[in-house]
């Protein structure tokens, strides 16, 4: 049985779980209203007590939406951070913290790290399996936007070759990220460093924006890319090429005139080759090769405990809501106690009264749950906009199977519990109800 289950696709498994969760509610509903047509009375009850009903639906929607919103937001954040690292198959750096290097290279968080020498760069760049070996150079900024030195091939690869304007052809030309507040043709003088400590007067070279990248959904959208030679030049370093060599930007570099790079982004021609390259460029006390995807996955695994705690909190919230719904149902049924007693006095079968009360409860629960789905998605979108604005990582929340399962499980349990207030109506003496 377990092997059959494992052989099913994830979509089939999720669909079957969803069906298993909703089936108890559907069966209860079918058994309760079978042979009766309670909807005319239910509509009348919904209209007669519309304001308490609206409040009840809103309460359910708020609680369901909160749980769904949190889970959808967490998943959106996970997908967004992973998508931002998609183009960074492998990074080679000096031995140290993979996390620090990943934050610096992928998410452009400033950090002081040792530099790799030209020999290492050339060995990687000249490897048969390597299609892109992009040195990165950090350290400067303009108006809060980090300036990253690299090579033209990487800028094209990062933007899927979607560059408005043209690629740089001179040391002091730049490609702006999609959301950098600079237009093509604008010039600027880079500041040394980042944030409050940036020194505006440290450099005198003026850089002109000649192109703009399409949005990538990553912090690189707010970065300015320049030839790596530019960063070296403004810091008074050699430009990677011998003084007597013809003027050029990008590789090949002369190891003797290569000032160093904190990280090299490597793309191989095949996935399997990336793993082989990692083995080749992981060397004791010399280089460290790592996959940002693996580092992120390990981070997610640690954060998974937090996610489980969140899911548990959501579950507890749903249980509390289910209890509140049950209590609320008992209270609501007291509102139309007299009407139900009148029905019974007129000879309506007990099962018909049961089906009316249960259907009424089901309408409130389903309405609240569906509205809650919308509230959850809306809340997740609002939170995502805030996170995207603050981190530049594009977070797009979507409703996934987890939320669907949560919703259907909640509905099934509450539909089952709704039988209790319906049964309580039947247990009350008819005469007392008529006098109420």
């Amino acid at each position, binding site marked *: 049985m377990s092997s059959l289950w494992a052989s099913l696709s994830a979509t089939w498994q999720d669909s079957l779980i969803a069906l298993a969760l909703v089936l108890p509610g559907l069966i209860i509903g079918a058994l309760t209203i079978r042979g009766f047509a309670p909807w005319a009375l239910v509509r009348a009850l919904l209209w007669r007590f519309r304001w308490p009903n609206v409040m009840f639906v809103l309460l359910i929607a708020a609680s369901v939406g909160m749980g769904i919103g949190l889970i959808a937001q967490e998943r959106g954040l996970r997908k967004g951070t992973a998508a931002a690292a998609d183009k960074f198959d492998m990074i080679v750096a000096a031995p140290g913290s993979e996390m620090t290097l990943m934050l610096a290279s992928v998410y452009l968080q400033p950090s002081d790290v040792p530099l790799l020498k030209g020999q290492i760069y050339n060995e990687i760049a000249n490897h048969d399996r390597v299609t892109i070996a992009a040195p990165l150079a950090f350290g400067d900024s303009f108006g809060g936007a980090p300036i990253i030195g690299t090579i033209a091939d990487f800028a094209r690869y990062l933007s899927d070759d979607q560059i408005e304007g043209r690629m740089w052809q001179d040391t002091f030309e730049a490609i702006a990220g999609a959301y950098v507040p600079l237009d093509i043709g604008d010039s600027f003088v880079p500041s040394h460093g980042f944030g409050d400590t940036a020194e505006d007067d440290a450099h005198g070279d003026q850089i002109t924006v000649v192109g703009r990248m399409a949005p990538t959904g990553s912090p690189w959208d707010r970065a300015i890319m320049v030839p790596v030679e530019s960063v070296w030049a403004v810091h008074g370093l050699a430009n990677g090429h011998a003084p007597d060599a013809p003027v050029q930007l990008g590789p090949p570099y002369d190891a003797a005139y290569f000032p160093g790079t904190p990280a090299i982004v490597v793309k191989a021609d095949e996935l399997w080759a990336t793993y082989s390259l990692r*083995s080749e460029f992981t060397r004791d006390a010399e280089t460290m090769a790592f*996959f940002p995807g693996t580092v992120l996955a390990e981070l997610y695994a640690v954060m998974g405990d937090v996610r489980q705690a969140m899911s548990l909190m959501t579950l507890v919230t749903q249980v509390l809501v289910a209890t509140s719904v049950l209590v609320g149902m008992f209270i609501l049924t007291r509102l139309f106690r007299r009407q139900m007693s009148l029905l019974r006095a007129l000879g309506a079968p007990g099962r018909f009264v049961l089906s009316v009360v249960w259907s009424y409860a089901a309408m409130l629960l389903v309405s609240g749950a569906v509205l809650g789905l919308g509230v959850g998605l809306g809340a997740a979108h609002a939170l995502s906009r805030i996170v995207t604005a603050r981190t530049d990582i594009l977070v797009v929340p979507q409703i996934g199977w987890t939320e669907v399962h949560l919703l259907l499980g909640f509905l099934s349990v509450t539909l089952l519990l709704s039988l209790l207030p319906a049964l309580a109506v039947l247990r009350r003496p008819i005469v007392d109800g008529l006098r109420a």
Partner: protein
Amino acid sequence: MRLIPALLLSLGLATTAIADDTHDDHDHDEQDTHLAVMDGVEVLHPWTNAGTGPMTLIFAEVENTGDTALTLLGAESDDATSAELVGFMLKDGSENYQVIPMLEIAPGRELDLAPRGVAIRLNGLSTPRTEGDEIEIHLLTDRGELALRVAVEAEDAMKHSHAGHAH
């Protein structure tokens, strides 16, 4: 005991697993599960997680001790309907393993088959794996097959229980 691999290799027994030389307190059978050697290839600590599902991932430290590049081509096991090399990928924020056709290891280099990296995936397993069990597989390389006795570690293990020991 380093003499053993040399003698076996000289006799042309290229796919024979041998015992390691530093675990004096281990018996021979246990050592076989730690290190397997053939012509220019050393595979240390092959292991997998305990579990009941039809699929499992096998990890190990593979070292190319030869003078030329070594290519891993896949694996075979009598316990599984198929075996393949897989590489870890983060897709839409979720963990995935994608089939890869081969892996090259440069001369003198080591490749770690590890969780969230590369691994050998066994499919169609019909029996549960319990901690302490062993699975037999054959690692396929361009230099021939190497028999491995894979140790079954705890369900949540992230490395071989003897990882870090010298062999």
